[in-house]
């Protein structure tokens, strides 16, 4: 039963992916701003121009272009970057791991701190911590993450010299293996600030949502009974209430993922972190449409897959749901 549901979800995912790919294809073709003009120099000769058009398939009729595009996409060929003069796929492969590392680090911290913080805010809701504590996640959710990044860099990097202000590693650093690439002290030092700022932004949602959700569960009778059974308050909070309160948080993950994608892009930009977020901004600034398009598809796919995973997790967590 589970497998049939899974298959259905994957099918929906593929259809959605196809729709989004088509959408972006037509967006690029139909919106004002001739994409070809961007890399065609008036100074080029007609032959060179024709040659470039031929190479990028831009002189074929629209439906042929579309089929070619779809074919390439399925085969993993994302096109050729105008700016870098390399296959888009390669560029994505280069930058994607960096984004993943940053996103995973930030989200992990955000969710751990967020959930535990939310439990505490709910548990101690009658104390001063509980009443004023909700302002913290509220603040960080209202503050644009690039701004908190800028402020953090201003104070923590430039003024007090605690963290590097940009990049993923110090210039000139050579890494020998994967471990050294992603686990070296230098790397971690560079990762710390962007991940922290991103985490502060992301944690707002799980923290406030956990708190609200916990408060709703408090009214349930099994909570009273758990206390009547003589279980410690901590156990009641973390084992009984939280488990029930988690369900809405998992569904809210869709919103969280949306925030994370946007947040990541802007954070990478502020910290000059070499990931696909930053690259997509640079690509659009450079009018490098194949690159922008390819990255967009990768991001869209990531969002869809994570949403599907979140749904799967929800079904696993809630024994009352059937499919």
């Amino acid at each position, binding site marked *: 039963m589970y497998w049939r549901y899974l298959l259905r979800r994957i099918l929906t995912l593929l259809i959605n992916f196809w729709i989004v790919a088509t959408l972006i294809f037509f967006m690029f073709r139909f919106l004002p701003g001739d994409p070809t003009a961007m890399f065609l120099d008036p100074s080029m000769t007609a032959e060179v121009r024709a040659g470039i058009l031929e190479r990028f398939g831009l002189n074929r009729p629209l439906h042929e272009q579309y089929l070619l595009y779809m074919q390439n996409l399925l085969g993993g060929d994302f096109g050729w970057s105008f700016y870098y003069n390399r296959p888009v796929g390669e560029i994505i492969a280069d930058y994607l791991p960096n984004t993943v590392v940053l996103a995973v680090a930030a989200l992990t911290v955000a969710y751990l701190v967020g959930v535990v913080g939310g439990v505490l805010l709910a548990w101690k809701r*009658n104390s001063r911590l509980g009443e004023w504590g909700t302002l913290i996640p509220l603040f960080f959710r209202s503050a644009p993450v690039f701004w908190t990044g800028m402020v953090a860099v201003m104070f923590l990097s430039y003024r007090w010299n605690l963290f590097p202000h940009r990049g993923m590693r110090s210039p000139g650093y050579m890494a020998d293996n994967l471990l050294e690439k992603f686990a070296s002290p230098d790397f971690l030092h560079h990762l710390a600030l962007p991940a922290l700022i991103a985490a502060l932004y992301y944690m707002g949602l799980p923290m406030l949502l956990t708190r609200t959700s916990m408060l709703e569960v408090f009214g*349930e*009778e*099994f909570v*009273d*009974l*758990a*206390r*009547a*059974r*003589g*279980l*410690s308050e901590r*156990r009641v909070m973390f*084992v*009984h209430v939280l*488990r*029930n309160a988690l369900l809405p948080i998992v569904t809210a993950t869709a919103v969280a993922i949306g925030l994370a994608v946007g947040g990541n892009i802007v954070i990478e930009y502020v910290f000059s972190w070499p990931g696909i977020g930053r690259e997509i901004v640079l690509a659009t600034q450079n009018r490098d449409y194949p690159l922008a398009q390819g990255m967009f598809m990768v991001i869209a796919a990531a969002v869809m897959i994570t949403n599907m995973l979140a749904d799967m997790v929800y079904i696993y*967590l*809630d*024994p*009352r749901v059937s499919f």
Partner: protein
Amino acid sequence: MSNILLDIQQLSVTYETARGPVQAVSELSLQLPRGVSIGIVGESGCGKTTLAKALIRLLPTNGRISGGAINFDGVDIARLSPKKLRNMRWREIAMVPQSAMNSLNPVYQVGAQLVETMVVREGMAKNAAWKRAGELFEMVGINPSRLHDYPHQFSGGMKQRATIALAMALSPRLIIADEPTTALDVLVEARILDLLRDLKETYGLTIIYITHDLSVVARTCDLMGVMYAGKLVEFGPTQQVIRQPLHPYTMGLIAAVPKGDIRDWEPVAIPGSPPELIHPPEGCRFMHRCPFATATCSVDVPALAEGAPGHWAACHYLHQAEQMREDARIPLTWSRSLAGAVEAI
């Protein structure tokens, strides 16, 4: 070792509400012998559920025990420190809650919740705990194969049995059953009541039934107490209280239940409603709805007095009980009260 397991002395419970303090239970005194079942009846808001919660000290945040003592085998529960209290919970006093629908955590297996209680509270090993959980299930009449099911997979009656099994998990001496059969249909209700009675006989349990249903009490309880507006107004052996009630309120309750040949029975309804407990009336709280009230009743608070051996009631006119009983059977009598007069307008 005295015969009295639970000795409640002048217990008062107050809730702090936005409109002021409400004394939900007023100076309630009750003595419960071991191995006996007692039913506490009363209409909604009379304070019986508050009493139950006060006994296990699980009042909501705005409630507190404002006076009196609860002596459980010599120990005053009302004054216990939180740590000792937690220690005592479930081991000595357990609860079968109202509406088993929501009393089990929906995301954990039913058996797991039993096991958790035993492992965390008694330090039992997991395997031993699961085995004992199976035994508990059998004891209440559920197939042990259902241990790994989730609450939503149980029927209403089964859930109630499961909560009874849960209550028995640490072999308590006192069980408080708060409206244990309210949400169940009549057939299931009968079986649950039988189960509770069997358990009481087998294990020498003391059970307090909190209910608004007189028939439940009549069928299962040795002793019976009637609460009204936060006070205990009558108390005694069940059969005696039912056959020869001493307090007008009890008389009204009993007259309202059809008995004998329905064709001969006339339904009685007590007009009016219980008083607001923010400003409790002076004198007897039932005065307003009592057809036998006099001026004395509005001034003096009646104390519990022994109207018959082992049978107590809080009324100034116990000596006239027989006459009052006669009158109480007639519906017209009840319109003689102040509340009845108001309603007639």
